[in-house]
């Protein structure tokens, strides 16, 4: 089938308006939250599961790769159409089909934006906890495909913990309906869970059934500043050892504090080695306040120089200001960034932060570290400038050193962003060859022709050396034909 015929075939499924094929449109779908860029052959925006299935059958018929795309906020290059292909944009499938109060579940289309779902269920007194920092733009389908997490995950778990059912379009165009509204369901393999974190390589998720919780009525927050990083880590352990499970324990290291202070000029102490934001929620205001004050006291005893507690909304917002400013502050710092997402055992956090600092000094980069202290998920951000000669090779070395440090400390490559293209060459090192081989067999069973999201997740065999340089960088896309 030639290009014109293919466009025609897709247009009969979704309508002319929803096949994006003109040059500028292909450029609009050539990027995501990373610094890579590759042009798709075509883009299509279906409106229903049936349309998705029909689109997949057309693509399978001509052997064209299919790249599922939610909001394109991936930080792993998951939606970059390496080598071309058909991007399936799910943003139009954004209906909240049902908020079932009686059963505490929501049924949504894959393109529903995370924050929209949260607002809708909160209006009903319910709660959908997973809160990636991208929640205002990311989609539920994307969250499921990457098993997204966020600050609240220490207490409430990650996306996986809320997926009860999925509708998935398979590589042969069949529509698979898995699970449903039941909280307990052990009938057969847990197939729905197989697609959680599959990064678009196994099927296209079109509908999701999610577990909801009752919405906690009260929240209180504390901010603690530590002259010494080790004291912050000891405080985190002290809090958990005291039997408190807070909603969040957000950590910012010294460099992050300074980057934020440069941006905000809010008077943060530049010498402090760590800043912690602690939050608790619940239904009893005294219990919530008690626990936050207890956490504040523990921090104070274990070396915090100042601790502030906020129970009213305005004060809470003020305490969160520094943490919220991390993204804009980093966004304005330097020209390029590589945001990493390693996980280490909680006890290894201070050691990991120190190693990142050494790696930064060794390769000449600022690498602020912030993240979720309760679960050991840290985001070292390498700030660089691609205009400097040889820069990318140095970034590669620094990133590889960070991965290896995390693995050495008993951790792993990614906590929530996924593997995509950016970390695929490290997969074997992280999982071992057997696990990668089993993954490959699963993939082959579900998608024998390798139609879905090729070049992602699995090592391409090019090795670790040059793992970034082999990727197409932003601004180097071929002019569309």
């Amino acid at each position, binding site marked *: 089938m030639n290009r014109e015929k293919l466009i025609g075939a897709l247009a009969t499924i979704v309508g002319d308006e929803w096949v994006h094929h003109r*040059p500028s449109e292909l450029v609009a779908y050539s990027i995501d939250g990373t610094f890579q860029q590759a042009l798709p052959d075509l883009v299509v925006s279906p409106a229903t599961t049936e349309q998705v299935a029909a689109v997949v059958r057309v693509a399978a018929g001509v052997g064209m790769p299919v790249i599922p795309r939610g909001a394109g906020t991936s930080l792993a290059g998951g939606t970059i159409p390496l080598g071309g292909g058909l991007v399936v944009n799910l943003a139009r499938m954004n209906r909240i089909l049902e908020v079932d109060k009686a059963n505490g579940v929501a049924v949504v289309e894959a393109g529903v934006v995370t924050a929209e779902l949260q607002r809708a269920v909160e209006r009903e007194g319910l709660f959908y906890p997973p809160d990636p920092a991208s929640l205002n733009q990311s989609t539920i389908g994307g969250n499921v495909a990457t098993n997204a997490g966020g600050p609240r995950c220490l207490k409430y778990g990650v996306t996986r913990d809320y997926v009860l059912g999925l509708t998935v379009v398979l590589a042969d165009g069949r529509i698979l309906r898995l699970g449903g509204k039941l909280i307990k369901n052990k009938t057969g393999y847990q197939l729905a869970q197989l697609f959680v974190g599959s990064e678009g390589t196994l099927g296209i998720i079109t509908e999701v059934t999610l577990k909801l919780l009752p919405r906690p009525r009260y929240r209180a927050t504390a901010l603690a500043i530590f002259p010494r990083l080790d004291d912050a880590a000891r405080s985190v352990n002290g809090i958990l050892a005291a039997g408190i499970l807070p909603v969040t324990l957000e950590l910012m290291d010294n460099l992050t504090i300074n980057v934020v202070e440069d941006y905000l000029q809010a008077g943060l102490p530049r010498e402090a080695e760590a800043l912690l934001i602690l939050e608790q929620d619940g239904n009893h205001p005294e219990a919530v306040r008690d626990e936050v004050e207890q956490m504040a006291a523990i921090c104070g005893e274990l070396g915090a120089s100042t601790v502030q507690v906020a129970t009213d909304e305005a004060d809470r917002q003020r305490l969160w200001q520094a943490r919220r400013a991390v993204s804009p502050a980093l*966004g304005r710092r330097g020209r390029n960034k590589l945001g990493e997402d390693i996980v280490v055992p909680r006890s290894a956090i201070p050691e990991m932060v120190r190693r990142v600092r050494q790696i930064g000094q060794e390769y000449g980069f600022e690498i602020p570290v912030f993240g979720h202290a309760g679960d050991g998920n840290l985001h070292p951000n390498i700030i660089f400038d691609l205009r400097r000669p040889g820069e990318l090779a140095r970034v590669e070395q620094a990133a590889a050193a960070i991965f290896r440090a995390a693995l050495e400390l008993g951790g792993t490559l990614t906590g929530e962003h996924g593997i995509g293209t950016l970390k695929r060459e490290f997969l074997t090192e992280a999982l071992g060859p057997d696990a990668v081989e089993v993954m490959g067999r699963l993939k082959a069973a579900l998608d024998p022709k390798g139609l879905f999201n090729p070049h992602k997740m699995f090592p391409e065999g090019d090795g670790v050396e040059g793992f970034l340089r082999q990727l197409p960088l932003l601004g180097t896309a071929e002019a569309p034909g």
Partner: protein
Amino acid sequence: MTGGLNLLREQYDNLSACIRCGLCLSVCPTYQVSFKEEEGPRGRIAMLKALVEGHLNLTSDLLEHELNCLVCEACTAICPAGYRMEPAQIAFRADIRDAAPWPVRFGLDYFLGNLGRLRRLVRLLALGQRAWLVSLASRTGLVDVLGLRRLTRFLPDLPTTFIVPRGQVWRPAAGPVRYRVALLTGCVMSTVFAGVTRATIRVLTANGCEVVAPAGQGCCGALHLHGGLFDSGLRLVENNVRAFNPDEFDAIIVNSAGCGTALKTYDHYAGSPRAAALARKTRDVTEFLDEIGLKPPAGEVPVTATYQDACHLAHAQRITAAPRRLLRAIPGLRLVEMAEPALCCGSAGVYNVTRPGFADALMRRKARNILATRAEMVITANPGCYLQLLAGLREAAGGDRPAVEVRFLVEVLDQAYQAAPQAVFVEVRG
């Protein structure tokens, strides 16, 4: 194409600031009604960047997606990386100015660039009002091409006397002069909305301001800059920099959000220290009244009202709290929030004339959100929004009377002051 994309090239660093996080998709009006990446800020940036890099040519599809941008600045306001859409669009549109439809280019240059002509046009329209235009539109096929039939939907009640800035001074009738301010009388604000500008003068004098309308001033140039008429825009900017001497005033007051945004960025277009001082001293009238502490109005305006954030106030100037504080200070007025108050209504300068598809979709969404509040009045601070809300609410009512009354914020304040009458100003000279 003229100019070989020279201005856009200068925007390359700005375009490169985007880190592709996608946050702006959540606030972009054209994305929110299409869910297409090519109709969102991130896509528009990628396309402009690819154009500069030579990976894209200036094809009709690219032009369409870029010109669909309302330049509402919602993306700029929310962007964590400091990207700015307005200068990029102004540069792009100037580089491709021949692409703007000729009636728009002609209208902007012929009428807004010359206030004498604009006054004659408005007077002519006022005489015949809508009836004249409607019959003209239906009798001649040609006027359809100009979009006149659409235009009739937007036409408000027109005045026949205008404010011609000649250096007039209005002093408070009683009490001391606390501030001396200059007023930008503008183009449509001094003609089509002359009544609103008079209300602005009354409200300012009631708050202890001596108000001056410096002679020689004209249109702010914003529509020209957004419309690709860069050189005409620059001429208007320079003209106003000559007309206003910032050293003589505590503030330069603007009662149209779009014009205020333009004045506040004059330093980008005219590099002189005087332009920079002018930009620094520019205040939206709502911002200024809030800053100096509004004199509480004694009269009542018993109405349930909702407030529409003008893009150029909320996003470009980041003013959202001040107008609401002013409204809450009016006795009897009950303020209810509509859904998506800061989502563009689709007016965006002349956008509603040039790109009806998105404009109408946004207008209807706005009308629905307003009607859902059950408010009797919708209040805004920008002429474009006023006209668009009027059109949307007329359509909702299926007639000439809008389903909900549309007012400027200063008009409502003025009404509150007038409701407990007292002399507010004396005109001294002019």
